[in-house]
């Protein structure tokens, strides 16, 4: 295990989660307050990262934006992991018609390019926190279903499952006690990987104007606003992107470490 990279990943994730949680206390200004006297200022005191077109403090906006990004990513990835894993386990364990029905439904969702499916869902529901969560959840459910189904198929025919069945244990109990622990590895790897892509996904949606509604700060929308006056002051476009990258990098490094931990065969595929 390349511990230096893993440690870096853990530190980045810990820092960004801490920053997001503590945003209300550590952000130096109100993220929506306009300091009209110092519009478009570069990094300087008291605006450490500078200000945007309306004179709003970039650091405060980034901290609050990080908060909503991470909240959306965590809620939606958790939801899709729960639903997707459950579907995958049921599908793999029961087999037969249930399996066919569930997996064909997942295939239909797979037939859409991820971003487009997400866009279409947000278009249907209208922009906002809840719609993005639903969009990301729907897009990620089939991934978890596929990930969970494979190992379930393998676990189902293991002697310990047959033994439990021979002992007359209830099916639901067998699944929870003997099948689920065996699939947690791949699910966990996918979970942390999905957190990384969900942050990217959310920021792309908000860049396109389909994210949380202003004035709630969001990192993608900050970049899209800042593009209009990039010639005058590039900072407002630069910093939010760096923030996104740091968070995503953290999750990616952690997910690589997890992957190596749970699947030594895939050792080559890590960074």
């Amino acid at each position, binding site marked *: 295990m390349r511990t230096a990279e893993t440690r870096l990943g853990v530190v980045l994730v810990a820092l960004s989660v801490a920053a997001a949680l503590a945003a209300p206390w550590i952000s130096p200004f109100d993220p929506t307050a306009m300091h009209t006297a110092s519009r478009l200022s570069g990094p300087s005191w008291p605006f450490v990262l500078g200000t945007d077109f309306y004179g709003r403090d970039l650091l405060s906006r980034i901290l609050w934006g990080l908060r909503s990004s991470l909240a959306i990513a965590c809620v939606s990835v958790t939801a899709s992991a729960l639903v997707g894993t459950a579907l995958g386990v049921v599908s793999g364990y029961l087999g037969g018609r249930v399996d066919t029905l569930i997996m064909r439904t997942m295939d*239909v969702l797979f037939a859409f390019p991820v971003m*487009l499916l997400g866009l279409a869902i947000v278009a249907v529901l209208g922009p906002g926190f809840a719609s993005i969560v639903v969009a990301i959840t729907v897009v990620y459910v089939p991934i978890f279903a596929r990930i969970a189904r494979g190992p379930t198929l393998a676990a189902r025919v293991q002697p310990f499952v047959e033994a439990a069945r021979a002992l007359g244990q209830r099916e639901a109990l067998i699944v929870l006690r003997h099948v689920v622990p065996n699939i947690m590895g791949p699910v966990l790897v996918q979970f942390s990987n999905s957190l990384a892509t969900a942050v990217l996904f959310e*920021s792309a949606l908000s860049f396109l*104007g389909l994210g949380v509604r202003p004035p709630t700060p969001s990192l993608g929308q900050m970049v899209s606003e800042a593009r209009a006056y990039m010639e005058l002051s590039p900072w407002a*476009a630069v910093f939010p*992107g760096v923030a996104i990258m740091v968070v995503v*990098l953290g999750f990616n490094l952690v997910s690589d470490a997890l992957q190596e931990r749970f699947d030594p065969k895939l050792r080559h*595929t890590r960074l």
Partner: protein
Amino acid sequence: MLVPVLVTTSFVVFMMMHAIPGDPAQIWVGFETTDPVILDNVRKSLGLDQPLLVQYGRWAARVLQGDLGQSVRTGRPISALVAESLPVTLHLTVYALLLALAMGMVIGIAAATSRRWGWQALYRIFVMVGLSVPQFWLGTMLILVFSVKAGIFGLLRYPLLWEAPAQSLWSFLLPALTLAIPNAAAFARMVRASMLEVLLEEYVRVAQAKGLSHLAVVLRHALRNALLPVVTLAGIVAGYLLGGAVVVEQVFAMSGLGRLGLQAIVQRDYPVLQAVVLVAATLFVLVNLATDLLYAAIDPRVEYR
């Protein structure tokens, strides 16, 4: 296999678009008109008074004849809108796919076969950054550096390859790079992994023992086998490219399919959005089919009946 997938896909697209809140007839006449008689007439003429399944059947029948309907906003035929924007998107995505493959292969192969510190470092940084950078920000930064600051690229016109070849390749370069880099990182990772695996195989050692040069072993014996998983990945990447095109087209103000769809969302022009999603999903399905066939062509062990 292709037909049922397309039928289900189109049905899902259709149902999804009909779940959008808001009355399409109201959008059609504009929000000043509130006369219920006029609205009823419009509904009838658009076929909105029919049951959903009938509406779907009519829509699907027209789509099969190449008629995608009309834009609710501009009244223009959607097939014309798609015909204008599709070439831009295809141009962008194919260019990006080639760039991603080229970058991914070079960096991946070098990282697997060379022990030089420089290649290893380049590989690490490229993959880490590539998989973590948001595309819209990458594109924005490229514009900032190469267009706003250095003034090397103008970003107003995107001529197609057959209109002005040299100018086209040049003007599509930044958007294609933006679209390519995250996918190139995925390719590099896959190429390196599968290369490392293949290099341990016995036939590679035999080739080395025959006294073939390092380059010959890598290119002739190892690469071909290492490419199999890469082909699978290419199919997946094609989906990301189509989706990413929405973002990249917006960043670079290119009037492609993705931007058409985005405008349709903003203007609630749902027949256009419906057509865009349908066209994109169809393309995606076709690409996946092509990948499967290509896979069979490269690997004699895979057979399709």
